[in-house]
C-alpha cells in the first residue's frame, strides 16, 4: 500500500465526550433516585451535542482536507456497520422479550403449557393479546389499544416512503445532481418529522384516552418500550439527516466520496426496518 493510513494527533474531544456523557448519566441517575439533578442532565445533553459538533467538525475538516484514503473510508464503513449491528441486537432483546411474554409467560399464567399449574395463583386470569386484563387486577390493563389500520398504518407508509425518497436522494448525489439531492433529502426529513408528530399524537391519545400507559401491565410496557426506543432512534436519525442537509447545502460530499451520507442513510433504513417489525408484531398481530 502506498498511501498512509491517517493517525490523528491527540484530541480533546474524546475526554470531553467522557465528561459530558458522565454528567448526563449522573444527572439522570440522581433525577430518578433523588428527584434532583435535572441541571446536570441538561448540561450533559447539551454537552453531548456540543461534542458531536466539535468532534465531527474535526473529522469533516480532515476528510475535506484530503487526509483520508480509501482504507480510512473502509474503517468508517465497518465501524458504522458494526454499530448498526449492535443496535439490531439491542432491539432484538426487546423483541425477544415480547415473544417470550406472548408465547410462554401469558399462557402459563392462564394455565396452559408446561407451567400451567401457575393458574392456581391467578384463578380469574385469561390470557389474551393485547392483554387487556392483568393477572393482578390492581395493576389494570389498558381500556383499549391503538388500531393498527389508522395512524400506525399511515406511519408505516410514511417511513417506507422516506426510505425510498432517501434512496432517490442518494442516487442524485451519485449522479452529481445537487438540486435533486437537496429536494429529496428535504422530503425525507419532512416524512420523518411527520412520522414523529403522528407518533406523538398517538402517544397522547394512548395515554389520555385509552388508558394505555407504561403502567398498564405488560402490554403497555412492551408497547412503549419498543415504540419509544424506536421513536428515539427516528429522532436521532432525523437529526442526522438534518445535519446532512446542512452539509449538502454547504457543498459537502462528492459523487464518489460521501461516507457520512451513506452512514446516515444506512441508519435511516435500519430504523425503517425496525418499524416494519414493530408494525407487524406490536400493532397488527
Amino acid at each position, binding site marked *: 500500500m502506498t498511501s498512509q493510513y491517517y493517525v490523528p494527533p491527540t484530541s480533546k474531544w474524546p475526554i470531553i465526550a467522557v465528561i459530558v456523557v458522565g454528567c448526563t448519566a449522573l444527572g439522570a441517575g440522581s433525577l430518578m433516585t433523588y428527584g434532583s439533578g435535572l441541571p446536570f442532565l441538561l448540561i450533559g445533553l447539551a454537552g453531548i451535542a456540543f461534542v458531536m459538533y466539535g468532534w465531527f467538525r474535526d473529522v469533516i475538516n480532515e476528510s475535506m482536507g484530503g487526509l483520508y484514503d480509501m482504507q480510512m473510508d473502509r474503517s468508517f464503513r465497518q465501524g458504522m456497520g458494526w454499530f448498526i449491528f449492535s443496535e439490531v441486537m439491542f432491539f432484538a432483546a426487546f423483541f425477544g422479550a415480547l415473544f417470550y411474554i406472548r408465547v410462554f409467560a401469558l399462557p402459563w399464567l392462564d394455565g396452559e403449557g408446561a407451567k400451567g399449574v401457575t393458574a392456581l395463583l*391467578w384463578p380469574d386470569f385469561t390470557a389474551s393479546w393485547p392483554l387487556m386484563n392483568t*393477572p393482578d387486577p*390492581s395493576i389494570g390493563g389498558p381500556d383499549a389499544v391503538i388500531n393498527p389500520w389508522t395512524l400506525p398504518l399511515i406511519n408505516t407508509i410514511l417511513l417506507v416512503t422516506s426510505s425510498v425518497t432517501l434512496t432517490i436522494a442518494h442516487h442524485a448525489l451519485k449522479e452529481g445532481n445537487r438540486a435533486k439531492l437537496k429536494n429529496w433529502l428535504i422530503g425525507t426529513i419532512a416524512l420523518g418529522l411527520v412520522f414523529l408528530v403522528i407518533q406523538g399524537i398517538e402517544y397522547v391519545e394512548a395515554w389520555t384516552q385509552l388508558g394505555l400507559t407504561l403502567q398498564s401491565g405488560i402490554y403497555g410496557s412492551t408497547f412503549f418500550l419498543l415504540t419509544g426506543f424506536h421513536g428515539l432512534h427516528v429522532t436521532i436519525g432525523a437529526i442526522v439527516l438534518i445535519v446532512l442537509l446542512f452539509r449538502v447545502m454547504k457543498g459537502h460530499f462528492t459523487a464518489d466520496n460521501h461516507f457520512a451520507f451513506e452512514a446516515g442513510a444506512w441508519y435511516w433504513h435500519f430504523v425503517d426496518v425496525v418499524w416494519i417489525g414493530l408494525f407487524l408484531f406490536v400493532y397488527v398481530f
Partner: protein
Amino acid sequence: MKRFALTGICFLLLAALMAGSTYAASINTSTGWNMPPGVTDVSREVYSLHMTIFWICVAISVVVFGAMFWSLFAYRKSKGAKSAHFHENTTVEVIWTAIPLVILIVMAVPATATLKKMYDTSNAEIDILVTGYQWRWRYEYLGEDVSFFSNMSTPRDQIQGLEEKGDNYLVEVDEPMVVPLGKKVRILLTANDVIHAWWVPDLAVKKDAIPGFINESWFLVNEPGIYRGQCAELCGRDHGFMPIEVKAVPQEEYDAWLASRRDAAVAEAAGADREWTMDELMERGAGVYNTYCAACHQPEGQGLPPVFPALAGVGMSVDPEQRAEHIAMVAYGKTGTAMPAFGDTLSPAEVASVITYERNAWGNDTGDMVQPSEIRDLLGK
C-alpha cells in the same frame, strides 16, 4: 536439570494432593466431602450419575495431563531436545474430535433418563404448596386445611458468637415440613416476594420458587428421618438464614400430626373471640415481632433505612391518628415494596398483638390496643 526436577515435583505434589482428596471424596460420603446419596430412589440415581461423570472426568484428566506432563518431561530443551517440524495431522484431529463426542453421548443417555423421571410429577398422593418469603418458608397442605410458616430457629446469639453453636447451627427450624413415608409428595413452589429456591440435598430436589409462577417437583421418601436443606437462590439479606427441615414419619404419625395441626389452628382462631389484656398482647406481640418482623425492621424497631423504615419513635406506629393505616399496612402489606401482607398468613391474634406491640414497645407508648376480634372482623375471617 535440577530446576525442572523441582518444578516437576511441585506439580506432582499438587496433582497428588488433588487426586488424593478427590479419591477420599469418592469413598467417604458421610463426612461431607461429596454429594450425599440421599434417601430417595431419584437421589440415589442422581448420585450415581454424578459419580459416573466424575470418574469419566478423572479418567480424561489422567490421560490428558499424563500426555502433557510426559511431553514436558521428555522434550526438555535443557536435556537437548530438538523440536520436530510437524504441525498438523488430519487423522488425529478427527480422532480427538470423535472420541469426546462419544464420551459425551455416554454421559447424556443416563442423564436424559433420570431427568425424565424427575420431571414426572403425575400420580402424586400429597400436594404441598411451598411459598418462599423473605426469609422463611410457608407450607400449605392442599386439601388438608393445614398451613404454617417455618422459620429458622437458631438463636441470633449463636450467630453473633455470644453463645456456643449447636449441632444443627443454621439448618434447624421451628416447624418442620412433615411428610409420610412411602407416599409420592408433589410440591408446588412459588414465592411471595423475590425468587427463592427450595433445596434438600437428601431428596435431590432443588427448584426455584418464583413470585407469580408455580414450579413443580416431587419426592418419595422411604427412610424415616429429618432431612435438612437451605434456600439456594440469593433472596436478600437473610438468604443464608432460611433453612428447610423435612421430617419423614410413618403414616399414622403423619395423620396424628395433621390432626394436631388442625386443632392448633382452631384454638388459634378461637383467640379472636375473647378480649385480650395489654400484657397478653404485648407478650404475644414480642414473639411475633421477633419472628416475622425483626429481620427487616430490626429487633429494636430501628429499621435499616432507607429500605426498611424504622418503627420506633417515627411513622405510623407512634401516630395516634394513623392507627387504621398501621393496621392496614400490616394486614395488606404494601405492593411494590418488600413489606408483605400478613393478614391472610398470620392469625388475627398474631396480627393484633404485633400491631399492639409496635405501638407500645421501644418507647412508642401510644397506649393503643388492637384486639384480635377487630382484625378478624376487618379481614372477614
